[in-house]
């Protein structure tokens, strides 16, 4: 099938809102090269449970493309059009299974030595979209607060050394009441700037009780999803055993199966209202590597995806300890919440995770005004990156997190 052959009925199996969106933009979709159309269909097929920020971006993109005159449209598409595709790729049911198409496309681009060309083309396209679409900046500067080291003792290696050149390092924070102060700040922002999926709390262990009481705060935690991860492994085992009986399952088949799992498959129950969160949780567990077995990876990956997809005004990410390393077969089989913990390793993981969270926040619109704070929980060390604070400075004066928050504002 060629994109020009798309019809409204082609999308009959799409969820209702995605189907309407595809039908309303059929003219644009039909003119797009398959290599670009496929990722767009991946967004459309999950449109019904997308976050508001994702929806807005997709609509802006479609609107931009629709307004282009023919020559400009073709010029924008031509770098994608000239990347050759194999007949096997074109024959895939890319409308019904755009995820599967993307997996096969990736393997194909690598094998044909086209992956670098594709990435370059995609980045240029993205740049063009951003220049043209002028998304609204957030109503207030974004805040990301990362708390590391819950359950860990200080280690020999210095913390926050990647972040320090960009912010102020505080070495004499009074840790008493620190977590409460941070959660109060998060709560205040959620109340003052209510926004659907605009304020998030992600925890690598059991969530703090105070967070559960904050209205308007989207919460997810490793402890609450650990059973879903184990369910995922059980289903994966069943699938590969079945596949082995009928011929070995390839990597792509396994990936497609995992990607097809729904919240119901993983026993994640919820209401229609929180369907975007349930589906996001499934995406985290099925598309992230290692976040099923290590809570530190979970917090880092969930924070990345949260910033990328939901683009929140506030993100509070709290790392906990992860289970100790073991052979992969054991890690996949055992209960991660009942294992010995690697305290020192978890702190190193979290330190890197905090750095990656800052990088991911920096990729968002209006990053210049954003605020970022990382604190070693229960200890006196924190690093704050905010326009009012000098970069690369060390403050050794005794202070509190409340004061640091004030200085960042």
């Amino acid at each position, binding site marked *: 099938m060629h994109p020009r052959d798309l019809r409204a009925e082609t999308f009959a199996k799409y969820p209702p809102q995605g189907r309407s969106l595809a039908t309303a933009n059929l003219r644009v979709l039909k003119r797009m090269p398959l290599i670009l159309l496929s990722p767009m269909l991946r967004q459309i097929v999950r449109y019904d449970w997308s976050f508001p920020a994702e929806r807005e971006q997709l609509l802006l993109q479609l609107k931009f493309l629709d307004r282009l005159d023919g020559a400009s449209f073709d010029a924008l598409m031509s770098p994608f059009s000239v990347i050759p595709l194999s007949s096997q790729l074109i024959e895939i049911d890319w409308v019904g299974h755009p995820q599967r198409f993307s997996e096969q496309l990736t393997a194909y681009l690598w094998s044909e030595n086209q992956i670098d060309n594709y990435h370059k083309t995609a980045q240029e396209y993205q740049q063009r979209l951003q220049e043209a679409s002028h998304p609204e900046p957030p109503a207030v500067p974004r805040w990301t607060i990362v708390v590391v080291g819950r359950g860990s003792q200080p280690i020999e290696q210095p913390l926050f050394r990647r972040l320090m050149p960009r912010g102020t390092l505080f070495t004499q924070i009074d840790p008493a009441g620190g977590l409460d102060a941070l959660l109060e700040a998060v709560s205040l922002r959620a109340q003052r700037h209510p926004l659907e999926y605009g304020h998030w709390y992600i925890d690598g262990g059991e969530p703090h009780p105070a967070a559960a009481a904050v209205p308007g705060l989207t919460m997810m935690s490793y402890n609450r999803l650990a059973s879903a991860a184990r369910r995922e492994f059980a289903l994966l085992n069943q699938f590969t055993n079945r596949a082995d009986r009928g011929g070995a399952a390839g990597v792509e088949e396994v990936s497609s199966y995992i990607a097809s799992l729904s919240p119901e498959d993983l026993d994640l129950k919820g209401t229609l209202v929180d369907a975007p969160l349930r589906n996001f949780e499934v995406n985290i567990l099925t598309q992230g590597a290692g976040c099923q077995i290590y809570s530190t990876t979970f917090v880092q990956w969930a924070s990345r995806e949260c910033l990328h997809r939901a683009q929140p005004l506030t993100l509070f990410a709290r790392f906990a300890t992860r289970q100790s390393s073991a052979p992969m077969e054991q890690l996949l089989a055992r209960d991660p919440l009942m294992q010995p913990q690697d305290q020192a390793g978890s702190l190193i993981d979290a330190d890197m995770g905090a750095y990656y969270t800052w990088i991911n926040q920096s990729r*968002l619109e209006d990053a210049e005004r954003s605020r970022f704070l990382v604190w070693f929980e229960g200890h006196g060390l924190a690093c704050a990156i905010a326009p009012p604070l000098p970069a690369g400075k060390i403050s050794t004066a005794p202070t509190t997190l409340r004061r640091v928050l004030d200085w960042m504002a």
Partner: protein
Amino acid sequence: MMSSYSGSTRTECLQQIAQQRAITRRSFLRSAAMAGTASRLFGFAPLRAAALPRGQKTVVLTFGGGARDEETFAPEGQENIPHLMNELIPQATFCTQVVNRGILGHYVATASLATGAYEQFDNFADVAPKNPTVFEYFRKGLGRPANDVWVIAPSNGFNRIGQSDGTRFPPGFGAQVILPKHLLASALSKTATSSAGLDFLLQDNYEDPLFTPPAVQNNVKLSRLMEILHLSVDDFTHHAKTLSSADELSVYVMRQLMRQFAPSLLWITLHDMDIAHSGAYSLYLEGIRRTDRLCAEIWQMIENDPEYKGRTTILILPDFGRDSDFSASGNGFQHHRTGDPLSRTTWMMALGPNIRQNRTVDRPLDSLDLVATLGAMMNFATPLAKGKPIVEVL
């Protein structure tokens, strides 16, 4: 694959950081190598005569899992590689820029290193390389027996790396490939010794312990491997209990091979650091530190073995890097999916009696240059390999 991240100023900021990384990469690698200016001023050694010293041996040590500059030769990473920094580099010629332009999957990339041509097969497929391997060039070109070349490979998929698929080279000249983890599993199945406590060494136990390519002429039977290595099952399993990783098991098997066969060409691929895919940065660093230590141990093994001392060149190189922290479509150290410059660019060091010590080579090299270099070094032809000999190590 596409990311909706970025925007003008913030993207510029991140790009600036990434570019600073790229610009300084060469300079900090040079500083890491601590090479004197004099060695560059005086130029290269002349090309050596075609006839090589009698009994010359070569060890190729690659590590899969990818290692980035940040965690190795960058200033902040040097604490993870004290042995490479302090013991090996002062004795080595260090190539600061080796670019892998192929598919960044471990088996296919290592196979490409071994063939000198970018293989294009599915990384997870059970297939042999299309192009002839360096092992076949070596054995056919120099008329060497099967036991003169061995491969110690880390994990599933690598069992076919010893010999090409036969379409471009006559069969029967491949290398024997040992998969130590399954060798241990096989040993455990033959003994009353409990496998409890050894599970961490047996993560890929569906492999065959020894893969002898079809039609390779040798007298090694699967069931006799332990005997030939002069290992008792009990000793082997007992020793395994003293090891802390699968790579250590590989090095232990390497030591046995050196003692029993003293092969002229020995290829070992370590893989512990690929734990990075789990996203746990601390475990990735542990893997790098262990690899650093094992590199030094292997060099010590060579220096302490009369069959190898003074006549062995070792080439050490990662198969490729890992994604940059600043690639929007990646997730930093965790994977090697973006194909960005950091994931494609790595380094190589050479040590040996005919290698100049304490010098750097800054010009860009290609991963494919390895096979052509081995051919020039050991005096056999590599007609289908695409790379060029690295004259600075000849």
